[in-house]
């Protein structure tokens, strides 16, 4: 592209056409003040402070919205510019209160900074105060529009970045302001309290409410949000050794200036008074405080004894998707090398191991094949069995941006209404558990109409014929009958997908947490390969619930795989690690998470180490899990809190939070991101990696690591697709997602559309009808809710979130409610063949007839007590997404 040359402050410079004067100037280090410009937002030229003068004709131009044109002679600081800038600033200040002394924004206020820079104090203009404080009861955001300068950043952030549309301008002229629909308080609007507007507001007009600590941040540390699988970059602000604020990182390739309510306000569990501060040892049925030496010695003795008396395979270890890659790596080395067993698993078994198995079997790569920008530029996006708005907000933002502003067609496949359906061209509501029939049906339509990507299919895949034959049964009529979706819609969606230049399929727990989850994932992969949307274009986006679900698996906290998904049963794989670690490794695959519970009940497991997980709340049949864990001879739990599981332990080890340690997290895209230590661990708590190293030492087999960096270096060496990810480089934006061209096949991302094994493999999968048991006519679907996360271990200890959250309701369709004589707010009892649960009914008109919805944690009690332990035989994931129930009034 040709460049344009202009003169900027007397120097000849050049830039590409359509570059704005402001961008060019900033690139060259010339500062032009602005209040309404943000690199993530479209420029509107609202504040006019970025005026510059074109000396050819004396025109004053708003540099943020003026593109460079040949021959421009721009002066950014001419006397006229200065005069006008000062006048504009004075006018802004004339209607801004003189409350700087008591304003929490303090020196972070950009208006104040500019006034100081330009030497403006009291000014001659008549003051025009605009008193407009909005009374709101939510504990997150407070708005004082008397300080608003109408830059419109909050409105643009709301509409362009998070695409919520909760606020916009109202009225005009001097009455104009940013308001919700009907000027209701935020908690009554569409607002999701993502905090993006708070972070972007240049003045004190939109502020964080109920801050635990007043004062200015003295130190800001960039780290990774600990909640969902998006892995947003957050900036934690510290004052006096305490985290007092979280802000989104503007330039993050993951969240680009946005966060969600959990990231913005949910971090305060780190200073919860419930944090464990010292090791606890159970003596005579009671916990007593202990020193680390005592505790580690007790654990070493406890585990050692069992190993000696009943053999290493009577021990099991359960790692956490909330712990870092380094911690999980050390954990599996500890388990395999020191304890001598492969009985190790991690929390992702509960939700995303179907992706591992299903994608591994088809595309040969166990995870998401694209990155955020691929998703956002897709022309067609299919979201199936996922509610990213809640489970992965940054993904939802990207999908909404694509659908609303980039012309993508969105198709949501979900029996429940999700907020994304508002942006969708199609919202298909299949009956619960019929996804496979629908996916196969879509594939059949595409094949029948010969609309598939023939070139891709013939060159890049195999087993097509066999798969094609298996689809015979899935005619549109049959699929319509099974799923309840109109034939026309099935055909339209198939056509949309087949004709898309670039399509992405996003799926989540609504697909994986079924007994047929692996098959459904395979069906998704089949569809993606059929349309040539695997790796080369578009992609498959496997959402994961927890922050480091991907990393825990990558680093080998799995019963059947060594780090890097090397099968444990292959001697040469073991040999590689045996040589490295100098120990003999057990050769048989270990038990997966749910098998562990079963084996405890069978008496085959006697001791267990649980790191940062809470199986009593997160497994089906909590009562049985609790009973099993209490029957262990020895249970060690390392956790931040005295969780339901930790209460059963023989020894409890206090673990540090995400803000108190170094390491790396791998998000659902496969992006490895660096976690930084923000504060010192609370009390005597320690990062899990230090606990494990201490434990190894107490067991007389010290591990040779002195820092996370050393562990990461070993991971880079042993896990092929973590290569080139030097610890220090994990911060570079692109290094982690680029195709790694090292000649090998096991590269990080599908390399230019090539599958690791050379071919993608179509695998036939069948829809098997499940008959509902007699007497349980309703289907209960379990999902996450905005203000609670997972089983609530952390979110319930976040002060503001837990206060705002109403503890969850059992949602019911209005027709069913009338039939059962239930009205909003009634106390109801849900009964399944396996348990019962009480809760408050809430009527939701968007829910399908015959369906109920409940959050994972209901009134502090796990909804999984309603579930039988049914396991997907392939992925070993429990089916904990839906179950058959009946509802009664209490």
């Amino acid at each position, binding site marked *: 592209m040709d460049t344009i040359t202009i003169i900027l402050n007397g120097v000849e410079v050049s830039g590409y056409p359509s570059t704005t004067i402001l961008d060019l100037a900033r690139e060259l280090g010339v500062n032009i003040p602005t209040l309404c410009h943000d690199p993530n937002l479209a420029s509107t030229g609202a504040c006019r402070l970025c005026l510059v003068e074109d000396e050819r004709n004396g025109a004053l131009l708003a540099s943020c919205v003026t593109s460079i044109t040949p021959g421009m002679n721009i002066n950014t600081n001419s006397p006229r510019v200065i005069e006008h800038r000062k006048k504009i600033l004075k006018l802004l200040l004339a209607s801004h209160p003189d409350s700087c002394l008591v304003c929490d924004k303090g020196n972070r206020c950009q208006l104040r900074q500019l006034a100081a820079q330009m030497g403006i104090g009291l000014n001659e203009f008549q003051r025009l105060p605009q008193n407009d404080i909005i009374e709101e009861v939510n504990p997150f955001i407070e708005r004082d529009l008397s300080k608003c300068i109408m830059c419109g950043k909050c409105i643009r952030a709301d*509409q362009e970045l998070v695409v*919520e*549309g*909760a*606020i*916009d*301008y*109202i*009225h*005009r002229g001097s009455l104009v302001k940013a*308001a*919700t*629909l*009907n000027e209701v308080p935020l908690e009554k609007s*569409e607002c999701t309290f993502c905090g993006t507007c708070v972070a972007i507001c240049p003045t004190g007009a939109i502020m964080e409410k109920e801050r635990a600590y007043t004062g200015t941040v003295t130190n800001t540390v960039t780290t990774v949000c600990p909640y969902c699988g998006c892995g947003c970059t957050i900036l934690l602000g510290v004052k006096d050794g305490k985290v007092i604020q979280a802000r989104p990182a503007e330039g993050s390739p993951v969240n680009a200036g946005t966060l969600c309510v959990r990231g913005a306000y949910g971090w305060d569990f780190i200073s919860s008074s419930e944090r464990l501060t010292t090791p606890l040892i159970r003596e005579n049925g009671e916990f007593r405080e202990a020193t680390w030496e005592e505790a580690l010695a007790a654990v070493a003795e406890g585990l050692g004894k069992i190993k000696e008396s009943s053999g290493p395979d009577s021990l099991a270890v359960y790692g956490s998707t909330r712990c870092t890659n380094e911690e999980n790596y050390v954990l599996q080395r500890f388990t395999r090398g020191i304890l001598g067993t492969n009985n190790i698993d991690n929390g992702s078994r509960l939700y995303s191991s179907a992706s591992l198995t299903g994608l591994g079997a088809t595309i040969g790569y166990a995870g998401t094949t694209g990155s955020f920008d691929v998703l956002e530029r897709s022309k067609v996006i299919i979201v199936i069995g996922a509610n990213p708005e809640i489970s992965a907000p940054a993904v939802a933002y990207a999908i909404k941006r694509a659908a*609303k502003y980039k012309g993508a067609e969105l198709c949501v496949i979900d029996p429940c209404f999700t907020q994304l359906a*508002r942006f969708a061209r199609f919202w298909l509501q299949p009956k619960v558990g019929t996804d496979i029939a629908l996916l196969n049906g879509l594939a059949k339509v595409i094949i029948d109409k010969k609309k598939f990507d023939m070139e891709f299919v013939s060159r890049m895949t195999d087993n097509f014929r066999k798969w094609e034959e298996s689809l015979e049964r899935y005619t549109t009529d049959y699929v319509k009958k099974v799923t309840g979706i109109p034939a026309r819609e099935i055909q339209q969606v198939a056509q949309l997908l087949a004709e898309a230049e670039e399509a992405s399929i996003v799926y989540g727990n609504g697909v994986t947490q079924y007994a047929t989850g692996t098959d459904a994932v395979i069906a998704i992969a089949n569809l993606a390969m059929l349309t040539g949307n695997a790796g080369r274009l578009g992609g498959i986006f496997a959402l994961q619930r927890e922050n480091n679900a991907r990393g825990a698996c990558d680093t080998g906290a799995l019963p059947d795989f060594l780090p890097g998904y090397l099968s444990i049963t292959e001697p040469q794989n073991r040999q590689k690690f045996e040589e490295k670690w100098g120990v003999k490794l057990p050769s048989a695959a270990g038990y997966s998470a749910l098998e562990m519970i079963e084996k405890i009940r069978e008496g085959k497991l006697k001791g267990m180490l649980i790191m940062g997980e809470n199986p009593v709340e997160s497994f089906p049949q909590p009562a049985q899990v609790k009973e099993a864990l209490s029957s262990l001879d020895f249970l060690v739990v390392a956790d931040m809190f005295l969780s339901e599981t930790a209460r059963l332990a023989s020894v409890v080890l206090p673990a540090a939070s995400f803000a108190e340690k170094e390491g790396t997290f791998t998000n659902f895209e496969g992006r490895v991101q660096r976690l930084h230590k923000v504060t010192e661990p609370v009390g005597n708590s320690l990062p899990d990696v230090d606990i494990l190293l201490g434990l190894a030492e107490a067991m007389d087999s010290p591990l040779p690591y002195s820092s996370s960096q050393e562990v990461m270096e070993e991971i880079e060496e042993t896990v092929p697709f973590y290569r080139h990810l030097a610890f220090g480089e994990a911060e570079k934006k692109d290094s982690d997602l680029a195709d790694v061209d090292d000649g090998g096949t096991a590269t990080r991302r599908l390399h230019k559309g090539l599958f690791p094994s050379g071919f993608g493999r179509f695998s036939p999968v069948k829809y098997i009808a499940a008959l509902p048991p007699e007497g349980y006519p309703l289907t209960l679907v379990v999902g996450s809710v905005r203000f609670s996360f997972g089983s609530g271990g952390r979110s319930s200890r976040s002060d503001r979130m837990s206060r705002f959250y109403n503890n969850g309701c059992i949602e019911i369709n209005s027709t069913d409610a009338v039939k059962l004589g239930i009205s909003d707010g009634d106390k109801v009892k849900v009964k399944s063949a396996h348990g019962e649960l009480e809760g408050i009914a809430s009527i939701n008109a968007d829910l399908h007839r015959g369906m109920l919805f409940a959050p994972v944690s209901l009134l502090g009690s796990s909804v999984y007590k309603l579930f039988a332990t049914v396991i997907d035989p392939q992925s070993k994931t429990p089916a904990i997404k839906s179950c058959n129930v009946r509802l009664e009034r209490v």
Partner: protein
Amino acid sequence: MTKLQQKKPKISMKQIEKIITEYQGKKWALIPLVQKIQEQAGYIPPETIPIIARHLGLFPAQVQGVVTFYAQLYTTPRGNNVVRVCRGTACHVRGGKSILKLVKQHLGIDEGETTEDMEYTLETVACIGVCALAPNLMINKETHGNMNPKKVARLFGKSEKE
């Protein structure tokens, strides 16, 4: 005066929804659409805003922003007759202010308000364009020039009887 159909649009919500569906998916048509609703319903009932937004693929707050921006669009019911008193320079020097005061007294309402019987809505305008006849006011599309207290009384004094 009795309270007559204070908040009801002239046509039913169902009819309004029918108008909206005609514009399905047409973002550009927001203004013609709300004008049409106002023409037929007398005003733009706020409860229609989310429906408009849904059909046009806009955010409700965005639609509200547009509706509240234009002076010609109303979100509250208007009287059967709209009275516009001129505040222009010519009218002002010839006593427009007093005329406005009198109209207010007669109707018992303030600027921007509607009488309880929904008969009159009172507004002021910056100029009607017939300064030669100042002071002026308009009732609906009819202009009344050379206003004086007597004329005002004649126009509004016995309005209740209608």
